[in-house]
Structures are given as structure tokens and as C-alpha cells.
């Protein structure tokens, strides 16, 4: 252990390089996994906390294009097992100087899912603003949405980051703006066990609408699929890049130290004890790099979250499971990266190592 630390100290420059590239690789893995995972988990957590069943127009690719009759929401609300059914209009429109802002038209029974930090819930002709858009528009008294002026009656702060960048208004006002009755219904149940029965009942109600449990909706929703797949691919690539980087770096280090390996062999140290020393060295560096990378990633995510431009759309989260996974992978990278080249070196005659390795 002491020998390992001395080796690291004496090779300060190389140690610093290895340390930095390990830190960068591990941070990359963290950030990519966290950010892409964050986007999906944010959408799905929004949908999940809002309802157990989601109803859209049948066969549409995106909730944005969905148009269903809002009066059906009241019918659904009378079904046994249904706790609450609310209608929503999801739209996007320019607001003042901002080119595109999410607009949520919601039925009255949904207002309580927005926690007001000031003011009151909107009446007709009024809106409440998410805290982020409220800030970026510099606390307006009124706003213009698609040439129509609305008074600002309050400001809300949502648990879900990107909702804070949006505008919430009554269903009637939104219906006028977007020329539709409703985009989706969100239905919450008394008991999740009834979900399939309720889904079947809603689907039997009208041929134009389609009910799904929120979970299956998320699984089948195209945009989630695209985000999930691309995040998986990018995440896997970051992992691979990190592993390859460290393995190639370590094999260079071991290669440079071949003569040292040969000398230790000539002094009668066993291959395993020499490999052990090298592995301890890299493990020390990997542990440090992991700790720093975790700190850096948390810092970067914290900054990203507070950048106005993203309006909370990126809300990367580093879960404990991710930390654990990356931790194991980091250590594995270090061990494998050292073992492979070291095992290779241990098969070579010591003299060849000494002479060929260079002093």
C-alpha cells in the first residue's frame, strides 16, 4: 500500500493525467445518464402523479394533436372506481417575446395540483404563470398569448421542473385558443386494481377515444421511446468510451513499467504480488476520480438546473442506483484495465521485460 502511494507520488504527472481522464470519463457517464434519464423520468413522473389512466384521441402520434370531447370526462367521472377525471388541453404558443411556451388548459378540479406561491387561481381571461416564466418575463401584470391578452392572477411552483416554464389557464380559454374541446383526460382511480376494467369501459364508450394505463401509455408513447432509446445508446457509448479510455491508458502505464515488472520478478516477487501493487495503485486513483467526478457532475447539474434558457426542461437526477452502478463500473474499469496488460506482461520472460522495457 505504501509502495503504491509512493509510486503514485513519484509519477505525479502521469498520475495526474490518469486521474483527470478517469474523472472526465466518469463525469461523462454520470452526466449523460443523469440528463437523458432525467428528461424521461420527468415526463413520466408528471403523467404518473397526475393520473392512473390517460385518455387520448384514438390513433394519434402525439398528445399535441389529440382532440376529444371534454364532456366525456364528466361521464367517465361517474364510473365506479374512478376517483377523479379531469380534462386538459396541451398546447404551445408564443407568449410576449418568448417564441414558444407550453400552455396548459385545465379543468377546475385540476387547479389544486398547482401550488400557488402568490395570487389566486385564474378565472376566465386570467392565467397563472410558472415561476420560471414569471421570472424571465420580469413579473408581468398581463401577458399576450397568440394576440390575446390575459391578466396574470398568480404564480405557481411545480414539482415538475418544466411546468414552471409554462402557462396555466382555464379549459374554456384554452379551447378558444387552440380550437379544440380537450387534448387528454387524466383519470385517477380509487384502487389501481380496477384499472383494466375502467380502461375497457372507457374504450367501449366511444370509438374515437382510446384509454391506456399511464404506464402502458409511457411505454408506447413514441417520443418517450425515442428519448429512451437514444439515451440508452448514448449512455452505453459513454460507458464504453470510459472503459476503453481507461484500459488503453492503463496498458500504456503497464507497458512503460515493464522493466520495473521484470526487475521485481528478478528479485523474486511473484507476478501476483506485483499485479496486486499495480491494481492497488489504480484503485486509489479510481476512487479519487470517482469522488471528484460525482462532485463535478452534481455541480454541473445544479448549474444546468438554474440556467434560465433550459427553463427547467433539463432536470438531471443522480439516483443512488446510478451512483452505485457507476461506482462499481469505475472500480471494474480500473481493475480490468490494469489486470489485462499486467497479466500479459507476467507471461513474458523477465529479461525481455527488463531489456525491452527501457529503464
Amino acid at each position: 500500500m505504501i509502495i503504491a502511494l509512493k509510486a503514485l507520488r513519484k509519477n505525479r504527472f502521469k498520475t495526474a493525467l490518469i486521474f483527470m481522464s478517469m474523472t472526465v470519463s466518469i463525469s461523462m457517464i454520470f452526466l449523460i445518464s443523469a440528463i437523458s434519464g432525467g428528461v424521461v423520468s420527468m415526463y413520466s413522473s408528471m403523467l404518473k402523479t397526475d393520473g392512473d389512466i390517460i385518455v387520448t384521441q384514438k390513433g394519434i402520434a402525439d398528445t399535441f394533436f389529440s382532440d376529444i370531447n371534454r364532456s366525456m370526462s364528466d361521464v367517465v367521472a361517474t364510473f365506479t372506481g374512478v376517483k377523479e377525471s379531469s380534462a386538459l388541453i396541451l398546447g404551445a404558443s408564443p407568449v410576449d417575446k418568448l417564441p414558444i411556451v407550453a400552455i396548459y388548459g385545465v379543468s377546475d378540479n385540476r387547479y389544486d395540483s398547482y401550488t400557488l406561491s402568490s395570487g389566486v387561481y385564474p378565472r376566465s381571461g386570467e392565467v397563472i404563470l410558472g415561476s420560471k416564466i414569471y421570472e424571465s418575463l420580469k413579473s408581468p401584470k398581463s401577458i399576450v398569448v397568440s394576440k390575446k391578452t390575459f391578466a396574470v392572477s398568480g404564480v405557481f411552483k411545480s414539482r415538475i421542473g418544466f411546468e414552471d416554464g409554462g402557462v396555466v389557464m382555464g379549459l374554456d380559454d384554452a379551447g378558444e385558443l387552440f380550437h379544440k374541446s380537450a387534448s387528454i383526460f387524466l383519470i385517477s382511480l380509487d384502487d389501481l386494481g380496477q384499472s383494466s376494467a375502467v380502461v375497457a369501459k372507457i374504450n367501449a364508450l366511444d370509438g374515437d377515444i382510446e384509454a391506456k394505463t399511464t404506464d402502458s401509455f409511457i411505454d408506447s408513447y413514441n417520443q418517450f421511446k425515442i428519448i429512451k432509446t437514444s439515451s440508452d445508446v448514448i449512455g452505453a457509448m459513454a460507458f464504453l468510451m470510459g472503459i476503453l479510455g481507461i484500459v488503453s491508458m492503463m496498458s500504456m502505464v503497464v507497458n512503460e513499467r515493464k522493466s520495473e515488472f521484470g526487475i521485481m520478478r528478478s528479485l523474486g516477487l511473484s507476478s501476483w504480488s506485483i499485479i496486486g501493487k499495480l491494481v492497488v495503485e489504480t484503485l486509489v486513483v479510481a476512487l479519487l476520480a470517482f469522488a471528484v467526478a460525482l462532485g463535478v457532475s452534481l455541480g454541473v447539474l445544479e448549474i444546468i438546473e438554474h440556467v434560465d434558457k433550459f427553463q427547467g426542461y433539463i432536470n438531471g437526477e443522480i439516483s443512488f442506483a446510478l451512483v452505485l452502478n457507476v461506482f462499481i463500473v469505475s472500480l471494474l474499469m480500473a481493475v480490468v484495465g490494469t489486470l489485462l496488460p499486467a497479466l500479459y506482461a507476467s507471461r513474458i520472460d523477465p529479461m525481455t521485460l527488463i531489456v525491452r522495457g527501457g529503464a
Partner: protein
Amino acid sequence: MKITANHLTHYYGDECVLNDVTLSLESGKFVAIIGESGSGKTTLLSILSTLLNPTSGEVFFDDKTVAQWGNIDEFRRKKIGFVFQFHYLISYLTLRENIALGAMEPSAIEPLMEALGIEKLSRRYSDEVSGGQRQRAAIARALVNAPGVVFADEPTGNLDTKNAIMVYELFKRFATEGTGFVVASHDKKIAEYADIIIEMEDGKIVKISRK
């Protein structure tokens, strides 16, 4: 330790660099292997010292192969010492730590460093001492477990005449105390100190002279 070699042959690729060498060296002698550059001195020394596996042939230590001695690491540690042309001290360890690396008996380190006149340098790193001092530390590392034989390849190759003579004197002194030395060298001067002189040419032994 008596060393016997039977029909050692070694190829690097197609090139035969050691051609059917057989020899027997009694224990506790100062043996010099001399010859032109490329004649195969390093190759023979590496094979005799277990650091290189020959293409064919066998080496015996006190009539036993290394396999018969047991574990090769143990054998090297207890029975064999090495000195190389470039001292090959490990740069991130102090002289003392280098000597201690393979030492079985730490109490042997101090007296040995004293005997070699480097006791004051024990906390220095190899790049903080002179070439002669470095080579003395390397010799101490080779001798620390009181091995039966020390192999040295061009141990004076990087030293001036004065330091070279110092190294030969050291070898001679320890040889009289029972440790054998097998030393490959260009240096003609070594002949004045060695008990046995082996001359090589083109991978063959052409002459062995004993004093």
C-alpha cells in the same frame, strides 16, 4: 552454488544466438563471460539466471532444475541476485527501499549498506546519487538475501575506470566469502579479477580459462 548448463540453444526468430552451450561452474567463484558485442553473452547470462527460457537445453543449480527447487519466485528470491548494466533501481523508492524490496531479513540491510559505503544515502532516490553509488545500491540489493550466486550483465558498462575497479573488488571480496558471481562484460580489465574466464564468439564458448 554449483551451476551446470546442458546443451543450451537459443533462437530469436530464425537467428541462432546460442549454439549448444554446455558448461559447469563450481560454487563461490568469480566467473567472467567476455566476447564481442553480439556474441551472446547477455543471452547466456539471462538463461543461466532463470530470467529467460532457452529454446532448448537445461540449467541445474546444485544438480537440481529450478522446477525441482520448487517455486521459481522463491528460488530467485533466496538463491539468486542480479545486477544490470543500468542499475535498474526503482525510481520512486529510496535506495534503502529498493534494497528492502526483496529482502527476507530486514536486519541484513544496514550492515550491507555499510559494507558498501552507502549507509548515509539510504533515504535518497536513485536520481539523487552518483552512478557508482547507484551501482553499489544495486549490488546491495543483489546481495541482501545472501544468494548462492549473483548474475551481473555489464555491471560496469556505465561506470568510469575507478568505479569499475571498485565493483570488481567488491565482487572479488564477496566471492571469497562464498557467493558466486557470473559477470558478462566487454571490459578486458575484468580478467585480472575473475577466477574463471569464459570467452564467447558467435553463440559458442571458444575458450574457458581458470586461474
